[in-house]
């Protein structure tokens, strides 16, 4: 994954910093609560939501079970339809392929549809090194690019910014990238959207190379599917002479018919709409365009080999789990140090990148296991299950290991627990209510300690024969 986040501290440290930004917390709270309510309304509207969810899960599992076969099918169908298919094992190889394809066109500018996977591989940075400028065209991505910022949400990368911050960014930076923002720009969202329209219009009409990802690729037909709202996607997919789509291998669906499930699951889970404004579907070289499909692994086959962790590959990047997550709501996406933030990021990033860095090792713990993410996931990824699974594989600190092993030893035999309880009871007067030493301080920073009782339950039971004496 992208090196942008290398060397970041662990999640708790990032989170602590983010929590101090009250503007950020306000923006996130407002946005996540808005989208949560919208999603709930349109999901309740469908009486067969649970059946769609079960089908969505099964279709993705079937895709993964026979991914080799479906990839070959895609390759054949796309090639037959006049497209070119490329295979990339990792980020570097994908970047090389795309850079080479852009170079071959003689162009030095490309327009981009919002795509998670090209962020994952750091494509813009790789293109820049070769003197190619990539222009992000999704409004939120534009805000992130102009503000030299990081995305903090899968669907709405600039969710951490409010309207007045966006206005500032437009006024300050639009001129560096093209047409400047109007001097009298206000902070009304409509005005801001208009400014983005004007800023990008000429670019859309003149740029010769478009780069996209895809939401789905249909194996049997070779059809690519991109869902979007603004029309920037349509601009990038239709107008350029060359289109390059970089797609993670897990984005496949076996059959055309499968779209009847996913075109219901995704928009309702994602933007909380019955349907997103625009969905484009094309097969191979369309309307005279030169079309390239880059199929990317970049760690996905490693995830596929993990029997519990592989369910993360069902993800369709709707971001419903982010929007309901109480942790994400309070700290935002940057704390996760990955283009994939929130609950799905907490299970995807450590699997794609490994858990060598302190940040990646801390991600499986960035959850209270409250289960809200699993409830809303349209493909039923049991995120808490995968978190717990990854925790068992994560490196543990020596002090923690000692503590948990000791607790395990005590709990292993009732007699040991009984002795420990009696010891605690004897010294109950010495337990401070407001300031515990050592790791306990993390508790008493904000919470009092409950008083240790005079007698444990088991001692009471023994003494009174279950209260009958």
């Amino acid at each position, binding site marked *: 994954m992208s090196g942008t986040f290398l060397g970041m501290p662990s*999640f*708790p440290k990032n*989170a*602590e910093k983010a*929590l101090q930004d009250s503007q950020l917390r306000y923006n996130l709270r407002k946005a996540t609560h808005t989208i949560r309510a919208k999603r709930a309304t349109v999901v309740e509207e469908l009486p067969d939501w649970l059946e769609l969810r079960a089908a969505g899960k099964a279709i993705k*599992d*079937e895709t*993964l079970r026979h991914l080799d076969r479906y990839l070959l099918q895609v390759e054949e169908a796309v090639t037959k339809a006049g497209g070119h298919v490329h295979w990339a094992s990792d980020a570097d190889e994908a970047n090389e392929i795309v850079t080479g394809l852009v170079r071959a066109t003689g162009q030095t500018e490309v327009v981009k549809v919002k795509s998670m996977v090209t962020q994952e591989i750091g494509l813009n940075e790789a293109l820049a090194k070769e003197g190619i400028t990539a222009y992000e065209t999704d409004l939120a991505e534009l805000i992130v690019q102009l503000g030299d910022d990081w995305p903090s949400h899968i669907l709405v990368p600039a969710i951490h910014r409010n309207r007045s911050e966006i206005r500032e960014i437009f006024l300050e930076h639009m001129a560096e990238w093209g047409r400047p923002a109007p001097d009298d720009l206000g902070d009304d969202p409509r005005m801001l959207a208009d400014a983005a329209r004007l800023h990008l219009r000429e670019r859309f009409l003149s740029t010769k190379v478009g780069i996209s990802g895809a939401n789905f690729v249909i194996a049997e037909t070779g059809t690519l599917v991109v869902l979007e709202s603004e029309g920037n996607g349509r601009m990038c997919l239709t107008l350029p002479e060359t289109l390059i789509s970089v797609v993670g291998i897990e984005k496949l669906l076996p059959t055309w018919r499968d779209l009847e499930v996913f075109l219901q699951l995704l928009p309702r889970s994602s933007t909380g709409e019955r349907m997103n404004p625009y969905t484009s579907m094309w097969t191979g070289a369309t309307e005279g365009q030169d079309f390239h499909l880059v199929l990317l692994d970049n760690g996905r086959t490693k995830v596929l080999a993990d*029997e519990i962790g592989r369910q993360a590959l069902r993800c369709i990047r709707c971001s419903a789990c982010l929007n309901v997550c*109480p*942790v994400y709501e*309070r700290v935002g996406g940057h704390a996760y140090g990955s283009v994939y933030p929130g609950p799905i990021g907490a299970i995807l990033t450590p699997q794609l990148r490994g858990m060598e860095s302190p940040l990646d090792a801390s991600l499986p*713990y960035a*959850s*209270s*296991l*409250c*289960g*809200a993410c*699993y*409830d809303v996931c349209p493909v039923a990824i*049991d995120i808490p*299950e995968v978190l*717990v699974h990854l*925790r*068992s*594989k*994560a490196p*543990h600190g020596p002090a923690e290991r000692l503590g*948990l*092993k000791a*607790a*395990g030893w005590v*709990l*292993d*035999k*009732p007699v040991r*627990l009984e002795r*420990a309880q009696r010891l*605690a009871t004897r010294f109950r007067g010495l337990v401070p209510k*407001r300031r515990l030493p050592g*790791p*306990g301080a*993390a*508790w008493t*920073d*904000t*919470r*009092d*300690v*409950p008083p*240790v*009782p005079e*007698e*444990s*339950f*088991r001692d009471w*039971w023994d003494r009174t024969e*279950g*209260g009958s004496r």
Partner: protein
Amino acid sequence: MRVALFVTCVNDTLFPGTGKAVVTLLRRLGCEVEFPAGQTCCGQMHVNTGYRDEGVRLARQFLEVFSGYDAVVVPSGSCAAMVREQYPKLAAGMGATRAGAFASAHGGHSPFAEAVAEVTPKVYDLSEFLVDVLGTTDVGAYFPHRVTYHPTCHSLRGLRVGDRPTRLLQNVRGLELTPLPGADECCGFGGTFAVKNAAVSAAMCADKVGNIVATGAEVLCAADNSCLMHIGGTLSRLRTGVRVMHLAEILASTEAER
């Protein structure tokens, strides 16, 4: 019917009053309950913190101790959910290497898996046992106070106890139940999350406490003392004057006893 109480290690050690309340309540409803002395802990903390082997050892112990009962009553949503939701997953993980690879993780044929299949369906959260097994929503309790109820994540989304606890509370004489805004949101406890990510945990609890105080309730009730220890510790630190009580303790209260 042989009914066993799994009091849980946290209640046993820190909140014996909850265990006593369960015994009082069930006895009042004509149900004798046993306390198998071999019990300690369900293994939740270990499994959820990433110490699977220790957790599995405790799970084995639990299954052995509670085998042969008709019902096991647990006054803790998260411990009941650990047994019912996570034990089958642990079993699947230990079963044939490729079991449950794509379908939901269930199956396996080890002795552990067999014990899981035998014991876990008989494990009930207190409110489930009262409503589903004993078939009552009026336990004859009296508690003349304004109360708000926090459903706790594992009861709500794990066990899916639904409105059982609030139906029980609504039938308590004198009790005024006031709805808690944002009730379904996590309080931020999350076991070791409360110390490993203390700042986020505290921020989540601050919002929970704000909602609790806004209800004007005297008492915050829940069916899990771990969450209550966390929320109660914050309520106490902030000197809000709001008390916390386990559902069992409110349901055990009667007029005679006052």
